[in-house]
């Protein structure tokens, strides 16, 4: 597995935090409540380890609700925002003000979750595009419910790396944790590492990290 230097790692975390900060202000506007979001940590995992980590966070059915978008261009990746299924109703209730007292989200609630995912994923990808110096092209969001290994298997072969962003939402003083996975192949990851190094070189005026 490729390792980032501490400086590269911190730069990525900071850029993602700027990105999700913008997403949080967009969401605050929508729900007329203060929404804050932070990315306290990122990690690189293989797909199986990522699936295991996600499954370990569920306290209920073990199922995960995921909102995915595929991005391509300078860099190809599937981005998925994931919450334990039992948290998804909580998020809808906090963001919409009410949720249907059912076991599964209704179609309209799923669409609202998709919008939340769309705002968040676009902001994270915006941060990546900023590092790469090229914009990416994206699809509209899809909504899925399933076990973590199935959700993470939505894209392609198993020779992939998952960049995991741990995300903390705070709405109305209630904190909800979720994760964003960027699924990419090894060459995309190498590209990303290179871009981060270049970004740092630019930011520090040629100084090598």
């Amino acid at each position, binding site marked *: 597995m490729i390792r980032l230097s501490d400086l590269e790692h911190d730069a990525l975390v900071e850029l993602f935090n700027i990105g999700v900060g913008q997403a949080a202000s967009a969401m605050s506007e929508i729900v007329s409540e203060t929404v804050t979001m932070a990315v306290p940590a990122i990690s690189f995992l293989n797909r199986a380890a990522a699936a295991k980590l996600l499954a370990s966070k569920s306290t209920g059915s073990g199922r995960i609700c995921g909102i995915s978008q595929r991005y391509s261009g300078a860099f190809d990746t599937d981005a998925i925002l994931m919450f334990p299924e039992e948290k998804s109703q909580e998020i809808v209730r906090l963001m919409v003000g009410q949720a249907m007292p059912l076991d599964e989200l209704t179609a309209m609630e799923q669409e609202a979750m998709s919008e939340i995912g769309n705002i968040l994923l676009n902001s994270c990808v915006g941060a990546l595009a900023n590092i790469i110096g090229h914009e990416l092209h994206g699809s*509209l969001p899809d909504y899925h419910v399933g076990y973590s290994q199935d959700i993470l298997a939505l894209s392609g072969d198993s020779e992939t790396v998952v960049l995991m962003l741990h995300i903390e939402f705070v709405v109305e003083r209630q904190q909800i944790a979720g994760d964003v996975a960027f699924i990419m192949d090894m060459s995309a990851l190498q590209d990303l590492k290179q871009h981060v190094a270049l970004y740092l070189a630019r930011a520090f005026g040629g100084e090598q990290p």
Partner: protein
Amino acid sequence: MSRGAGSLPLLQLVLDCIGVGAIVLDAERRIVLWNRWMSQHSGVLGDETQDRNFFDLFPEQRDKRLDGAISQALRNNLPSLLSQTLNRWPLPLYASKSQAEQGERMHQALTVSPLNMDDGQRFCLIQVSDVSAAVQRENLLREQAMALRSQTLLDDLTGVANRRHFDMAIDREARRARRMGTPLSLMMLDIDFFKAYNDHYGHQQGDACLEAVASALSTMQQRPADLFARYGGEEFAVILPDTPAEAAVAMANAMCRKVHDLRIPHQASHSSERVVTISIGVASTDASHPGEAYDLINAADRALYQAKACGRNRVESA
């Protein structure tokens, strides 16, 4: 500026035939395409929109979510989804003429996608779908789910809302009041010297007393969002959304009188009249003093304690 797809008559025919709204904006946010669905539901004809800035036509959306989504598409090449649930009625579109006259907007879901031409020009496509049918279906589903749930939300003895129902409602109403900036009042009340009543008359008679008091009081709240609930033991709570403190205190006083006027005998009462009475604590929040459900319950509890300390059969407010 050429009119995008207008140069392709067949595509224009297709666009005019499809059952969703299609708008294309250029990089300056000028409208370059406006299909027939949009004309039908907005009352604005395609010719009137030509080369007009989208936000001159829909100024209320400036700097709102839709504005941000259009910027994402034009500036960052990223698509956006605007769900009906989180955005309600972004555009002034109407299902029919009569609904337009009543100002009843269509329930809509929007997507905003970037369009990249081979020559490097970028446009954005806004698609609008009418989701009224889905909204109606979900409203029906919500009503039925609520009805089903309400069967598990009633107190077995008195038939009024139970504690679980109260906990859900106070949370919801406190949030709504904060969000809408409206007042919210809460009463906590209990039956004076109820332990003595139970000891004197026995538990069955005690239950009958609770039932009588609950049934007399629970009919006094007029509005559908008002909630009279059994909080526990001989304690009840009343949630009054959109009700300022003075109105809640007035209602509390009427409730005290009502129970007193039932003239249920209470030989073990320490009061002179030897009838069942109640004490009530009232607490309120409003836009200038918004509060959490937890704080409101505490304040009402303290006011109730105060009413007890001041001699019972009375109302105190926080």
